[in-house]
């Protein structure tokens, strides 16, 4: 099992209602449906991914977060709203976070850390826009238009009164590493955040 799925699974309770923003080919939702008896939807815009979801029994809605938002979902209709590796690809991540925590009680967000040492190295010494396993694109064709660091994200959460319930930092293969835990903003490649607006 992919280690990030393993982590996310622990944060989804059995029978939870889940919304997955940018659900890709439905791997995560399929997994949560089988392992956690979760129900819910994925939103996706890639036609091939949508077809794959439909074929594997994942409910998927063709919906563009940038242009359509989440206005068709009522407040608090989901236990968990997921967004794995898509926050950096939307036009207004701040507004998406607001919407996530309007329609869901809790959000789980993963994104690549732009302050990882290898990216810093690329920019500082080579003077080129960084590329990595988590960010495998060229500057001119990348869908990742809103890159941020772990610290940036945490600052935004503070500003918006969003509480970070947990954070797990992993490397490019989604593996746990003691180095990443030691100095996350320098050594962690991907973080998995669990966020909420609710009090404990």
């Amino acid at each position, binding site marked *: 099992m992919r280690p990030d799925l393993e982590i996310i699974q622990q944060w989804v309770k059995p029978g939870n209602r889940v919304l997955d923003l940018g659900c890709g080919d439905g791997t995560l939702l399929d997994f949560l449906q089988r392992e956690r008896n979760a129900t819910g939807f994925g939103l996706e815009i890639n036609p091939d991914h949508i*077809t794959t979801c439909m074929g594997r*029994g994942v*409910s*998927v*809605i063709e919906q563009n977060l940038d242009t359509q938002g989440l206005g*068709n979902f009522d407040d608090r209709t989901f236990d968990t709203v997921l967004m794995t590796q898509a926050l950096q690809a939307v036009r207004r991540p701040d507004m998406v976070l607001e919407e996530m925590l309007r329609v869901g009680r809790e959000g789980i967000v993963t994104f690549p850390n732009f302050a990882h040492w290898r990216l810093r190295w690329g920019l500082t010494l080579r003077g080129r826009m960084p590329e990595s396993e988590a960010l495998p694109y060229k500057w001119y064709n990348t869908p990742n238009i809103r890159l941020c660091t772990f610290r940036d994200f945490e600052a935004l959460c503070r500003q918006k009164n969003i509480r970070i319930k947990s954070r797990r930092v992993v490397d490019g293969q989604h593996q746990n590493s003691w180095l990443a835990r030691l100095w996350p903003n320098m050594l962690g490649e991907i973080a998995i955040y669990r966020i909420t607006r609710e009090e404990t």
Partner: protein
Amino acid sequence: MPDSLPTDSVGIVTPQTLHFDAPITLACGQTLDSYDLVIETYGTLNADASNAVLICHALSGHHHAAGYHSMEERKPGWWDSCIGPGKPIDTNRFFVVSLNNLGGCHGSTGPNSVNPKTGKPYGPEFPVITVSDWVQSQALLADRLGIECWAAVVGGSLGGMQALQWSLDYPDRLRHSVVIASTPRLTAQNIAFNEVARQAITSDQEFHDGRYQDFDTVPRRGLMLARMVGHITYLSDASMGEKFGRELRDQAYKFGYDAEFQVESYLRYQGERFSEMFDANTYLLMTRALDYFDPAYEYGGDLSKALAPSNCEYLVLSFSTDWRFTPARSEEMVNAMIAAKKRVSYAEIDAPWGHDAFLIPTPRYTDIFNAYMDRVAREVGV
């Protein structure tokens, strides 16, 4: 006419007429004491009768959805692109049932059938039928065929309305409802187009208040006009432009009012052909059934409340250039399903053909339809 049958065709098919003796009470309050339904079936019903798929037809459709009636038939059934061995509705796996709806003019009891009480054709006395009435008659058909629960009820346009209505009226008798290029209710503009079509028919001198059979005539001109205006709403500006543009039949303008542009002669041809094979009273009835369809009406316009009893999973598909039932109307339906906490998948398919796109196999449409129906088949173990 095919020289030989394509390998992905269901082949030569023969319609069957089923007679129903138990009276059926309709939404309008009237009762039909007995009636016939003409059906075609493709594929084989499995031992536990779990692999049955119902095809619901649109305004001018009928039971002949796939295959050929004979080697002489010019074109296969109206949805042959999607029904057959290896096609989305795969007849190697599913038992497919397609019928001509009550009120139709292709063999099922309708306005041009003989009313047993008078010995004359019903004509305008045939009761107005609603989508719910059709669904009721289809449920009785399912009983007759020994089908307790459909693997899927599938339809485009007016057929999609039936697929939706099924999920409300018989929530435990279908696993999947596939609603293609449809809408939860007609708009004022949709009704307006229907009214123009009806006026074209009823103002034809040969209409005789719907009693044209008594006068041994047919309101051909009215039907032709009705079809012409309808046909325009099935196509898109772009597809008409691509097909005809401003092309003339001859080289130059003739400064007259005969059909000079290709699009004019095309519409006239389509209209004329239609007027020879379709019944005027049935056309009135079908357009009225469209107008009346509005499952949210009883719930103060809240479709999500109407959806409460539903128990099936939905696939909703729309087409980008469909201006008759736009993607926005499908999204309205999808959003109501989301609000009602139903399982639903939705895609808007890019296709240039307007409303008619649901009949035309485009790669993405076929891929999605294949993937979804493959999953339905696996779910029922075929």
